[in-house]
């Protein structure tokens, strides 16, 4: 019997629950033969989005729904929460080219989410935020180190 290719969870985004979720997702993806880099990126994107939700989304007491699906060329993810409207794509870009003494502490989480995903879409519907993302499987790093993936 083939294991289901989809992982589903309802997670209240406490730090402990986020760790447990990413461990479960890691196990699911590894069982389906997803490469280490895509597994890592999927876990990191989930961790950053859910942590941001708990910190800024004001919905730490309500579970977010997470769906992860393994497709031939990519890992797809969807995170749905009932917090106030927030499009993670609209977060300001951090300043990356300033001296270390002058770098602000923070602002990197959603920046990482944008950089690690090959697609990132946001929809507000039925009073819920829905964020869908794609992570390329078997991708290589761009020579310019921008983090965008290329498939060979």
């Amino acid at each position, binding site marked *: 019997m083939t294991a289901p290719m989809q992982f589903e969870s309802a997670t209240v985004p406490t*730090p*402990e629950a*986020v*760790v447990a979720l*990413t461990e479960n997702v890691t196990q699911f993806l590894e069982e389906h033969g997803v490469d*280490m*880099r895509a597994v*890592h*990126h999927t*876990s*990191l994107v989930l*961790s*950053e989005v859910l*942590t941001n939700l708990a910190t800024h989304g004001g919905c730490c007491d309500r579970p977010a729904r997470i769906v992860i699906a393994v497709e031939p060329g990519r890992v797809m993810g969807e995170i749905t929460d009932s917090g106030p409207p927030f499009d993670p794509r609209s977060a300001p870009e*951090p300043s*990356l*080219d300033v*001296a*270390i*003494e002058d*770098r602000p*502490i*923070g602002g*990197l*989480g959603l*920046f*990482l989410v944008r*950089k*690690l995903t090959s697609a990132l879409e946001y929809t507000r519907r039925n009073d819920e935020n829905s964020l869908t993302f794609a992570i390329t499987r078997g991708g290589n*790093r761009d020579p310019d*180190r*921008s*983090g965008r993936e290329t498939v060979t």
Partner: protein
Amino acid sequence: MEIHDERIGNTFVVTAKGRLDGGASAAFAEKVGALITSEKPKLLLDFAGVDFVTSAGLRAVLVLVKKVKAAGGSFALCAVQEPVREVLDITGFTDMLRIHAARAEAIAAMGG
């Protein structure tokens, strides 16, 4: 996350193992930051056992870098795993920090 520190010559070497994430970063910054007590401290973080670093972990690293720099010291990372290295590259940390392939090389470069 497991944290072990030792002094090699004049350099504090901190070996971390596990996830440097929102749950671990505050304790990590506090424990490692407590080592920075002297003038011109030398601090090396060995990340060979660190397989996951979130933005919260990056913030902890940045706090430590700032503390070391404020004391006129030097800071470096070594043995960073590839996915973590990619995160450091994307966020511009690689350009701000000294990152060495191995511990011995890092200690030599920091002057012991």
